[in-house]
């Protein structure tokens, strides 16, 4: 895949996403002018960009959609629900083709047929006008006249072959456009590629020309052929010039059925978004043109450069002096590429000039182009009035590698305190130790800031996850026959990329659940005295260092009694226990694995793969799920997730032979308790801290480390676990450090009590404890 295609694919996905979003909003508010303009712009830009690749079916379909949108904008046709459906289907098809391009670099074989079909369905909606893609000269012809060009013998032979092959005999009428050579087209070459060619006639239009004034570069021929080949193949071969040819079937009696002409080809007219790509292409062409040499490769290169430049001009809607391209190309073939390079360079300058103001409204696609932009390019307002700052599209892998480097930096800097200690203890240089500590403080601060900055880069808005829901809700609500109004708020709330990604599946499930189980049918709602249209509210906001997501519906709510009954029925707990549960606790039974209250499993939410999966997924990223509900009023599921996977500050302690870390946010204080201060209460120990009795836990017992010899004083780390204080007896306190906490992996993942491990500056591994699980 060329790098150009690599860049086109994510851009195409963006345009499609924008278009779909506009379309859905437009369905609700058909009169919004700004929406139709944004929609048009996305489709138009997509059309232009696609014209640079060998994907005419793609471009043709997008073009048809664009023409329909123009008609809607001009208020010639209304934006009905059916039209929205058709446009969405078309966008889906184009999206599938983008995936195909991503996977294999090309369109699937049925693309031509599908494109023709959908384009036809779109174009049929257009108001009938004189607009047509037929070239100026006549294409209606009487069958007899047409066939009379061929000798009877030829026709007879062709018919026989067709019969033998059990295929209709096709009649091809191809009138290449005058300027087609400049577009790199070779009509005769194209026709000779027809494997099923039976008869061929090539004529000059308008009879024998005057040789003196004849322009060999202006195509002036008509080609007619009889072909026995599958129609799809012929259409595919002529996909670029579908508007210059027509294909009919020669009927048995020698007549001809109505020709089916191809749809209009990609139109000219570029938008600013094309310029960066065009610039890249031009640069490449200039380089190739300058490669020189005098071999056969030179001619092929020059021909290719010329063809590419011609296509570029067409895509941009620009032109050069007639014949100029051919002249300089011919000279280049003869060995002098100066003219060609000069021409291409002048185009380049035109592009650069056009780019400067255009840059303000498009995103920068490549750093190669960035130096052209004047440094104080204005910030223009985006569609919703948000100022669009300069945006860099960066490969995710680069950001990830930056993150890893910073993580290593954070770890390496931790070796400095160790060094400082060694300087003092081993080498007896206290001054050295102090200097190292000072430097460490500076480096520590810088590393932390860098870490924060890179974490910031990874922050994504939740809209990344939310934006698929309007479409999802629309499709599913129609399928279920329910009217659901989706409200989204707080989509700008941001969190770390990993967190955002982990939200996607759980949210889909929650939304589907709400639509399927939570929300009643319109009749049920009417009987209940509610409005027929249900509301589904998707909200996001920030609370402290957590990001909160809420999925709330105004449906039938969850009946605690029903849940109790089902839980007992599924043997999840005994009837007595169930009766003893409060309503909120009963509702939370939903989170138990194997639970599903829908008596009929709909194909949407599945069976029992329910809330427990959601909870597991959320807890995996250190989040929480909370569910509240009111019978008859609705249900609300609230997710709380950490804003970022940041660095954890831990307190190191020595216990027995090992070094352990305790997350600093749980640590209240460190104290030294005299042995006499420890009280025994039955089996447990405790001590008095100010006015409270704090239970004591001997860490060496918990962690199965050897016990240190009894001392007069015990080092106790007071921590808050699950709301109450607990004292942890350790051997020694060590310093607090920042670590990148890596969750336990592989076979260790199942061991309770550890939130993860971290790498220390001296290469040792620190096990960080999860007190909630340990105690």
């Amino acid at each position: 895949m060329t790098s150009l295609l690599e860049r086109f694919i994510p851009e195409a996905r963006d345009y499609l996403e924008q278009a779909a979003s506009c379309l859905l909003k437009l369905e609700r508010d058909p009169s919004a002018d700004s929406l139709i303009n944004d929609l048009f712009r996305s489709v138009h830009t997509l059309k232009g960009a696609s014209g640079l690749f060998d994907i005419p079916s793609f471009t043709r379909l997008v073009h048809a959609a664009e023409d329909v949108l123009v008609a809607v904008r001009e208020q010639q046709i209304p934006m009905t629900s059916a039209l929205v459906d058709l446009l969405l289907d078309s966008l889906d098809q184009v999206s599938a083709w983008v995936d195909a391009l991503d996977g294999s670099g090309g369109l699937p074989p049925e693309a031509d047929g599908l494109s023709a079909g959908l384009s036809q369905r779109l174009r049929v909606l257009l108001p009938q006008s004189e607009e047509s893609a037929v070239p100026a000269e006549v294409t209606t012809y009487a069958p007899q006249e047409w066939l009379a060009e061929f000798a009877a013998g030829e026709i007879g032979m062709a018919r026989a072959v067709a019969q033998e092959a059990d295929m209709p005999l096709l009649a091809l009428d191809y009138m290449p456009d005058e300027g087609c050579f400049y577009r790199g087209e070779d009509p005769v070459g194209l026709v000779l590629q027809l494997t099923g060619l039976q008869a061929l006639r090539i004529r000059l239009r308008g009879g024998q020309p005057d040789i003196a004034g004849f322009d060999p570069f202006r195509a002036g021929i008509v080609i007619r052929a009889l072909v026995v080949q599958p129609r799809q193949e012929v259409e595919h071969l002529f996909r670029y010039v579908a508007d210059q040819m027509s294909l009919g079937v020669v009927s048995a009696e020698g007549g001809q059925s109505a020709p089916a002409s191809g749809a209009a080809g990609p139109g000219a007219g570029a938008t600013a978004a094309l310029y960066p790509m065009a610039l890249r292409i031009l640069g490449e062409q200039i380089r190739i043109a300058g490669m020189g040499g005098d071999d056969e490769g030179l001619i092929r290169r020059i021909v290719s450069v010329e063809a590419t430049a011609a296509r570029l001009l067409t895509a941009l809607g620009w032109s050069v002096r007639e014949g100029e391209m051919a002249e300089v190309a011919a000279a280049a073939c003869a060995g002098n590429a100066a003219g060609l390079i000069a021409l291409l360079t002048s185009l380049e300058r035109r592009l650069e000039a056009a780019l400067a103001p255009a840059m303000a409204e498009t995103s920068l696609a490549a750093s190669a182009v960035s130096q052209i932009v004047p440094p104080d390019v204005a910030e223009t307002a985006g569609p919703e009035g948000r100022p669009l700052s300069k945006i860099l599209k960066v490969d995710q892998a680069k950001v990830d590698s930056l993150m890893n480097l910073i993580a290593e930096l954070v770890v390496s800097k931790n070796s400095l305190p160790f060094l400082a200690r060694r300087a003092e203890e081993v080498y007896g240089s206290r001054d050295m130790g102090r200097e190292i500590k000072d430097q460490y403080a500076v480096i520590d601060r810088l590393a932390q800031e860098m870490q924060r900055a890179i974490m910031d880069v990874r922050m994504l808005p939740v809209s990344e996850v939310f934006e698929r829901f309007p479409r999802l809700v629309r499709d599913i609500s129609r399928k279920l026959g329910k009217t659901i109004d989706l409200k989204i708020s707080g989509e700008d709330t941001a969190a770390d990329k990993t967190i955002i990604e982990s939200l996607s599946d759980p949210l889909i499930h929650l939304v589907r659940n709400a639509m399927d189980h939570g929300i009643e049918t319109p009749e049920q709602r009417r009987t209940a005295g509610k409005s027929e249209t249900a509301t589904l509210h998707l909200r996001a906001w920030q609370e402290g260092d957590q990001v909160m997501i809420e999925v709330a519906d105004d449906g039938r709510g969850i009946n605690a009694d029903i849940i109790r009954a089902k839980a007992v029925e599924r043997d999840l707990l005994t009837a007595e226990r169930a009766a003893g549960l409060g309503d909120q606790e009963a509702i939370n039974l939903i989170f138990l694995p194997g639970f599903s209250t829908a008596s009929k499993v709909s194909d949407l939410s599945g069976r029992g793969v329910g809330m427990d999966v959601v909870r597991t997924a959320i807890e995996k990223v250190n989040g929480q799920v909370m569910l509240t509900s009111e019978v008859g009023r609705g249900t609300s599921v609230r997710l709380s997730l950490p804003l970022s996977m940041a660095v954890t500050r831990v307190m190191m302690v020595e216990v027995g032979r090992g070094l352990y870390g305790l997350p600093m946010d749980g640590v209240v204080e460190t104290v030294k308790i005299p042995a006499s201060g420890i009280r025994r209460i039955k089996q447990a120990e405790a001590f008095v801290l100010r006015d409270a009795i704090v239970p004591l836990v001997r860490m060496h017992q918990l962690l199965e480390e050897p016990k240190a010899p009894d001392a007069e004083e015990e080092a106790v780390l007071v921590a808050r676990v699950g709301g109450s204080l607990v004292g942890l007896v350790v051997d020694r306190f060590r310093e607090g450090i920042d670590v990148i906490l890596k969750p336990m992996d592989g076979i260790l993942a199942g061991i309770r009590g550890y939130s993860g491990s971290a790498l220390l500056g001296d290469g040792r591994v620190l096990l960080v404890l999860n007190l909630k699980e340990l105690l």
Partner: protein
Amino acid sequence: MPVTFGKTIVRCRDVCTVEEALPLLEFLRTGRNVRVDLAGCTYLHTALVQVLLAVRPRITGRPADPALARWLMPLLTESAVHAV
């Protein structure tokens, strides 16, 4: 160069691309009694076909490419001229 010019003969060999059309036309324009030899030609751009159809010089030689030989030669060597 694929298209070479002698005194009374133009030879089109191998790949004859669109740029050859102008030199070919100019040579044929001179009015001299020349012939065009297509022996060994593997590719002939439409522009050149067009020139040959317009000038209708004497064509000799058989193109190396089978499709050219089979389909184009008859059209270029036809004696009658049909208008559209």
